[in-house]
């Protein structure tokens, strides 16, 4: 105790000196920042002395703590709203997602302004900190003493915040110390408030966004700190977490990164232990940091009080009162806080101590529906939502299976190659590998323990983030398993270090998340809610007209006790998972060895590493690679191991996915999943997505897609596997095994028998052979994975949970096997639920078959049906003798799907009554939302609309053929005028040559890309002279572009305009920021271009039109999905290709058409223009340097592209015409491969995409919002 007194004395001395110095200087009119700096200087000296006196007792006394003593600790005068609270305030209902993104963008475009404001804010935020010394060990005991000192020294200052007397921390302190004497005076905040109030301007609303931008900038660091703390806490290393938080807190520059939530993490730990005084200390720290306690903080305090049996009710009352003062209510507590384990019950217990009959009132969020879907949500009388074909019990049993799967995190299944007989050699190799693995496991375990020991002890600076806690969150054994697994799946040609590291890190993270949920006791609650949720889906329960997300939300509110299901875990920052992964890779490279003579005893025995780190060089960049030793590859290939180990989320789900109810919750049961796929490290996206209010329709359509049950087409699977295990078939897209690969020729480079030309030639052969081998390997493995998963699922019924990208395109989450895949995987999938064909079902099946063949593109539906009937013989033969008959199906565009369709038709035809034949077969319909159609509809362009089937017309119009014709006309003209290349091209211009380019024009393909596409097509034509390919492709792409220009008047103009727009919007360009990650093995450069402050202008420009169109596409799909759901249809989509049962094709087509009309009845372009005008052309004053540019932009934006005459002549009318049918075409099957192709060519790259992030939800929302704004 005497020591403490010394300490307090020292402090008090120093404070007095300080006051003597400052009191003179600080007049009420003094400028705040100035006084901070002067004091800062003064104090640094003083605190130096002070610290030297008391160093032994007070661990650290940071200087700014003392400075701030005399500054007003007035958070309350001008409330600095914590980040969490102002989100809700600013973003009122009409400010949607897009707006906030663009706002952020504007800020970024004016870096100077932002910087200034940001700077001011920092000053501001820092200034009103309260003053109380922090001393990690003995602080709280010291604190009350200080308080008693204050009045003595601070007499010149007015105390004017009496209301603040009753601050919580002091109370707790006092309670702990049981020293009420100091209370009334001690808690007075000494304030130069008047001065501060005048200095700090009233905070205008807009500034809050600046804070946000700044916050986004340092968001990564914050995320790192947060995940570090949580990992420490999870691993039970409270000491480390605590000292880390303190070390951050002590230094001003680091402290400003902290917010209340960080302190809450520690409070939560103390609350679990029931140590109220520790919580009190943290409250003091909070105040000292100028932060305001938020719901979470009070929640932990109450929880702690609830845990302490002897807690005095008046303490709780005070706590609740203070919450009220801060504008928080107990109801908020229960509706907004995230609870773990029994936290909720404890808080409730505490509240009950003082208010015995309190019951939390939980409100469902009142969601505002955009007008486009308003009707859907409000008028449900005639809706009939589909039920799944399962009893409640079955569903619950399925849930249990899925839960078990996810708790294990990995799943090991038989590969389809398991059917092959095991030879002696294989057995030997398997044994060898198993022995090695056991040995490696031991070595790695040892190495991991050692390196953890080193990490734990060498980290002298405790404010540094290191990997140690992340290496403690799992059992050592689990890390080792993850590493061994990654060796097994390493491709023979190696893998880039970055990717390998990322994957390893991600695996650890996933496992950590699952274990976190278990620790938080979420699983039990999830089970209860899910079991109740099955009410909605099962067939043996009563009908209810509620959407899954609504039902789930209701259940969650009803069963509110126990832990919260959502929002518990923090994402690890990208850099952390990569660093962790690379750390593990490094460990493997250093430790995994084997003898060099395992396969060939002739070699000298040496212990050699199995993994190598080396570089490959791409342009001027060098890429670190991890390569396995050829001996290891040889062993693995020879062993042909028949087990495959996957992460659990790779498999389809065994029960219907958890419905998305918020951005953070849905899809898998335990595995973390993202609603929106983003590029790694783009945290800004996530922040913005969370802000977005009106996501409900989007979530519901994702739920609808995810709820479709699937099964496997077993006869087809057996045929495919038999070919796969035999020799594969390139023609049928079944990759052959490596034994079919070309042999790599061996030659001795030193051999003088060869001339140098021969050697060069042979070298090239070797290179080509190797390249071919590695390509074949990756194709083979991909197919192996897909088929093995399908085979594993052959008797199951399963579901694909869905998520989406930033434009709203939806994707199934499991990566390998899903309905977006190639022809082979699509053919394997059937709807689990069967429906009778009905009167027209058989016809649709036949038409579908013709579509799959790729023939008869220009025929009407009747024509196609007729054709189908004329080839019935072939169809039946294909179905009966797929491999031995006349193999008609093999020549189709999509052979496997065609074969499946043949079999279905055969079965239906042979059934006694085809109309009652139960069919599980999905029939595809082209959603006809290809880009040109959207453009034509947007621009209300008549000729264009006709050629893309938007106008009523007898025959289906084919825009590709149209363009081809146009190009041919140009060619004839040029050929006559003597152009050589035009003459060469005679007879080669076909629909096929121009198709891809035409299709991608709207997606912003450039001449360069278009030329490459055409070049590819021309090379495929065998008798086209190769030497002319380059010239010809160059010529053709020009012709295609001008041909399109002739046909689409308004369309291209829209595109050009939107391009201009983007260029103006983002006319500055800065390099992406990159993080250098120094690991022992190699310097890694993580380019996080997507979170860069400035977007990439060129990419933006090119990406805008395609992204815009894609989001229109996806909006149309989502609308269709929702309405199909309400009509009780089974519906899934592959982007713009919609699948349903044959019975319901007509209904779906009707809905699809209606929704296309509904979507384009919205004044989309006008809204976009208004919106951009609003965002970019207000507030740009003359003083702005960019004024001229703004002005130009304004003029440009104000000019909505002229919409063609059809707009006026047929307003609100189906562009297809009242009688028009949607024409199914096999376009859809190109869906994903075509997306991939585009991506690989870089056309629809989202180019630093925050700015286009606004695209997708805005469609749902602009409609309503703009009505509000501009009506």
């Amino acid at each position, binding site marked *: 105790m005497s020591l403490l007194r010394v300490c307090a004395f020292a402090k008090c001395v120093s404070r007095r000196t300080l006051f003597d110095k400052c009191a003179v200087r600080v007049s009420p009119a003094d400028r705040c920042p100035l006084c901070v700096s002067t004091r800062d200087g003064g104090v640094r000296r003083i605190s130096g002395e002070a610290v030297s006196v008391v160093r032994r007792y007070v661990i650290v006394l940071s200087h700014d703590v003392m400075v701030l003593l005399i500054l007003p600790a007035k958070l309350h005068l001008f409330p600095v709203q914590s980040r969490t609270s102002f989100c809700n305030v600013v973003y009122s209902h009409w400010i949607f997602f897009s707006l906030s993104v663009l706002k952020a963008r504007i800020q970024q475009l004016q870096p100077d302004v932002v910087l200034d404001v940001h700077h001011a804010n920092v000053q501001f935020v820092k200034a009103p900190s309260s003053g109380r010394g922090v001393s990690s060990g003995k602080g709280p005991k010291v604190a009350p003493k200080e308080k008693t000192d204050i009045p003595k020294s601070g007499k010149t200052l007015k105390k004017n915040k009496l209301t603040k007397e009753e601050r919580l921390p002091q109370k707790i302190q006092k309670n702990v110390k049981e020293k009420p004497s100091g209370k009334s005076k001690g808690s007075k905040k000494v304030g130069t408030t008047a001065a501060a109030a005048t200095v700090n301007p009233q905070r205008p609303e807009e500034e809050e966004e600046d804070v946000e931008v700044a916050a986004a900038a340092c968001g990564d660091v914050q995320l790192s700190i947060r995940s570090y703390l949580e990992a420490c806490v999870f691993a039970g290393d409270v000491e480390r977490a605590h000292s880390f938080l303190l070390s951050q807190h002590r230094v001003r520059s680091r402290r400003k990164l902290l917010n209340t939530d960080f302190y809450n993490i520690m409070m939560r730990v103390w609350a679990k232990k029931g140590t109220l005084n520790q919580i009190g200390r943290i409250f003091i720290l909070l105040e000292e940091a100028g932060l305001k306690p938020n719901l979470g903080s009070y929640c932990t305090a109450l929880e702690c009080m609830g845990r302490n049996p002897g807690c005095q009710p008046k303490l709780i009352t005070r706590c609740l009162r203070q919450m009220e003062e801060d504008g928080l209510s107990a109801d908020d507590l229960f509706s907004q806080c995230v609870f773990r384990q029994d936290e909720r019950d404890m808080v409730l217990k505490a509240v009950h101590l003082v208010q015995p009959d309190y019951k939390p009132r939980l409100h469902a969020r009142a969601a505002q529906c955009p007008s486009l879907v308003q009707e859907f949500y409000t008028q449900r009388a005639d809706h009939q939502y589909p039920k799944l074909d399962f009893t409640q019990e079955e569903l619950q049993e399925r849930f249990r299976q899925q839960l078990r799967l996810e708790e294990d995190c990995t799943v090991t299944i038989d590969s389809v190659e398991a059917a092959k007989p095991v030879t002696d050699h294989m057995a030997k190799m398997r044994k060898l590998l198993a022995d090695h693995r056991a040995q490696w496991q031991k070595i790695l375990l040892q190495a991991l323990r050692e390196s953890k020991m080193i990490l734990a002890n060498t980290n002298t600076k405790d404010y540094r983030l290191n990997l140690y806690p992340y290496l403690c969150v799992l059992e050592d054994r689990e890390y080792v398993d993850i590493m061994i697994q990654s060796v097994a799946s390493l491709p023979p040609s190696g893998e880039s270090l970055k990717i390998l590291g990322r994957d390893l890190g991600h695996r650890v993270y996933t496992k950590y998340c699952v274990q976190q949920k278990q620790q938080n006791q979420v699983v039990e609650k999830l089970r209860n809610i899910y079991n109740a949720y099955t009410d909605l889906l099962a067939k043996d329960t009563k009908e209810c007209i509620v959407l899954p997300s609504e039902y789930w939300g209701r259940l969650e509110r009803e069963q509110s006790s126990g832990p919260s299901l959502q929002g518990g875990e923090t994402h690890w920052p990208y850099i952390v998972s990569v660093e962790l992964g690379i750390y593990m890779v490094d460990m493997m490279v250093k430790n995994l060895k084997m003898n060099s003579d395992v396969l060939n005893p002739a070699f000298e025995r040496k212990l050699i590493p199995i993994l*190598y780190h*080396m570089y490959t060089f791409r342009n*001027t960049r060098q890429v670190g690679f991890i390569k396995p030793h050829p001996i290891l590859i040889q062993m693995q290939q020879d062993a042909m191991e028949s087990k495959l180990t996957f992460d659990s989320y790779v498999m389809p789900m065994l029960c219907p996915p958890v419905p998305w109810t918020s951005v953070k919750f849905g899809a898998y049961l335990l595995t973390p999943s993202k609603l929106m796929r983003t590029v790694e490290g783009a945290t800004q996206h996530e922040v913005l997505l969370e802000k977005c209010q009106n996501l409900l329709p989007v979530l519901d359509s994702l739920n609808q897609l995810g709820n479709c049950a699937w099964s496997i087409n077993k006869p087809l699977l057996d045929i495919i596997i038999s070919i796969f295990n035999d020799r594969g078939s390139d023609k049928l897209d079944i990759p052959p095994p490596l034994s079919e690969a070309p042999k790599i020729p061996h030659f001795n*480079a*030193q051999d003088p028998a060869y001339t140098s030309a021969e050697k060069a030639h042979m070298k090239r052969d070797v290179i080509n052979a190797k390249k071919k081998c590695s390509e074949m390997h990756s194709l083979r493995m991909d197919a192996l994975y897909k088929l093995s998963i399908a085979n594993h699922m052959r008797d199951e019924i399963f579901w694909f949970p869905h998520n989406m990208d930033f434009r709203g395109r939806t994707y199934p989450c499991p990566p390998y096997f899903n309905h977006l895949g190639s022809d082979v995987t699509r053919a394997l999938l059937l709807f689990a639920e069967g429906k009778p064909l009905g009167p027209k079902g058989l016809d649709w099946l036949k038409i579908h078959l013709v579509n799959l063949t790729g023939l008869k593109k220009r025929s009407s539906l009747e024509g196609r049906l007729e054709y189908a009937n004329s080839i019935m013989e072939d169809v039946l033969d294909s179905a009966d003798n797929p491999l031995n008959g006349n193999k008609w199906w093999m020549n189709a565009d999509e052979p496997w799907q065609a074969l499946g369709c043949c079999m279905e038709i055969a079965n239906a035809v042979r059934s006694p009554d085809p109309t009652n034949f139960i069919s599980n077969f999905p029939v595809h319909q082209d959603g006809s939302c290809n880009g040109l159609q959207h453009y034509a509809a947007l621009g209300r362009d008549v000729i264009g609309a006709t050629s893309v089937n938007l106008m009523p017309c007898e025959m289906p119009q084919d825009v590709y053929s149209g363009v081809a014709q146009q190009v041919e006309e140009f060619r004839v003209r040029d050929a006559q005028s003597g152009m050589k290349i035009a003459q060469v091209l005679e007879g080669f211009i076909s629909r096929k040559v121009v198709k891809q380019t035409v299709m991608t024009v709207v997606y912003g393909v450039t001449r360069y890309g278009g030329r490459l596409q055409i070049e590819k097509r021309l090379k495929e034509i065998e008798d086209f002279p190769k030497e002319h390919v380059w010239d010809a492709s160059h010529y053709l792409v020009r012709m295609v572009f001008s041909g399109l220009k002739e046909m689409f008047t308004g369309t291209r103009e829209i595109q050009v305009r939107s391009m201009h727009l983007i260029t103006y919007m983002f006319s500055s360009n800065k390099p992406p920021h990159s993080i250098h990650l120094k690991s022992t093995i190699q310097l890694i450069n993580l380019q996080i271009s997507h979170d860069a402050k400035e977007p990439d202008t060129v990419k933006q420009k090119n990406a805008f039109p395609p992204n815009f169109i894609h989001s229109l596409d996806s909006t149309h799909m989502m609308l269709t999905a929702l309405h199909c759901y309400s009509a009780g249809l089974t519906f899934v989509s592959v982007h713009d290709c919609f699948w349903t049962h044959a019975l319901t094709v007509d209904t779906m087509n009707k809905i699809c058409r209606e929704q296309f009309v509904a979507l384009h009845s919205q004044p989309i372009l006008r809204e976009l223009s208004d919106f951009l005008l609003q965002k970019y052309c207000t507030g740009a004053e003359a003083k702005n340097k960019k004024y001229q540019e703004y002005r130009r932009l304004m003029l440009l934006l104000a000019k909505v592209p002229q919409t063609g005459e059809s707009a006026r002549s047929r307003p609100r009318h189906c562009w297809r015409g009242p009688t028009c049918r949607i024409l199914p075409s096999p376009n859809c099957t190109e869906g994903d491969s075509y997306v991939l192709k585009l991506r690989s060519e870089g056309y629809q790259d989202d180019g630093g995409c925050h700015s286009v992030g606004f695209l997708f939800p805005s469609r749902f929302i602009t409609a309503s919002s703009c009505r509000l704004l501009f009506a």
Partner: protein
Amino acid sequence: MSTQIWRGADLMMRSACCRTIRSPSSEQPGAERTSPSSALTHRNLSAVAVQGQSRPLCRYDSLDLGEVEENVRRALACKKIRHFIVNPDLAELVTQHLRPENGRSVIFECNPGPGVLTRTLLNAGAQRVVALEGDKLFLRDLQELEGRLDGQLEVVHCDYFKLDPIGVGNLRPPVMYTDKLFTDLGISEASWTDDIPVKVVGILPLRNERGTLLKMVYALFERQSVYRYGRVELNLFISEKEYLKLVSRPGEMMQYRAFSVLWQMACDIELLHKEPWESFVKSSKQRMPSSKNQLPNEHLCLVRLRPRADLFSGGLTPTNASTLLMMVKQCLAKRKVKLIDRLNLWSPDSGSKLLSEMGMLEDILTGHVYPEEYLRLFQLIDKSQEFTQSWLYEEILENPQREGWG
């Protein structure tokens, strides 16, 4: 600490035994400089000397360089980002370094533009100048000049730095293959040890200096592209920054890169002249490259890169050169790793044996090894039996071709 000193001393000692790069010293360049008038007499003298042996010279005494303003205007008309030599004094200076009047080398002038240097070279008595101009804009004037002369000047629409593209597609000027260019010019393949057949003079395009330099040095080691025709000597203006990297020595960990090692290994590098950026006319309004890092970048440096005649005498051949290239690139991807670790990766346990054969310390870093030592190291490795078992040795065969360009 003591080991540090040790290493430093070791470095110095070894550097003494190694061939050093001739740096710009006092002899340079003023001493060699002769006045324009003497150059003219020189030309005339040599014209007399060679008369009769080879082709006749042009009738004109001296070619008119043209008005400076006019040349500047023409240079500025160029749409690409290029630098031009327009100043007659600068052209004169370059000419003197090339010594066109003696020796039988053909002079390739890359991208002459308005042709100031071309005329100066001819005036100085060059017997055969080939102007390789990539921009059509200047072609007409150059061809007109060609027509006025008696064969001393040949003009080809060709960009020297785009010779031998790796992509496919049909070529059109200015991109072409070397064999076509050389066949058209009537230059035949020569032995490596023969005299220098061609001297190239020009300004290295700024856009991708390092990539171009790497591409050229690969070609040199594998004796492809122009190096099939013998030891082509380059006299190029390189930005100061790149030059400093090119000649950086072991121990300068930031600058010492694979391409410096390779060039130093292959060539005698001589800095002929440093000229500030301002002396050149620049055709685009883009900013000067600013030097963001610690290296100065105020000048363009005229550097002579003359391939060594004895390069292929010690076991290095164009066939195994690709392995050397790969070895150097792998080693210098990171300069602060131990050489022994790298060697052991290739062939376990062989590192210390090799190092002792080389007389190097066990803990030497890859960034401390001299180019000549890398060459010797490679020769040792190439002879060693152990390395034939190494799979990495096979691996590296494929890489330079596939990804190494640039």
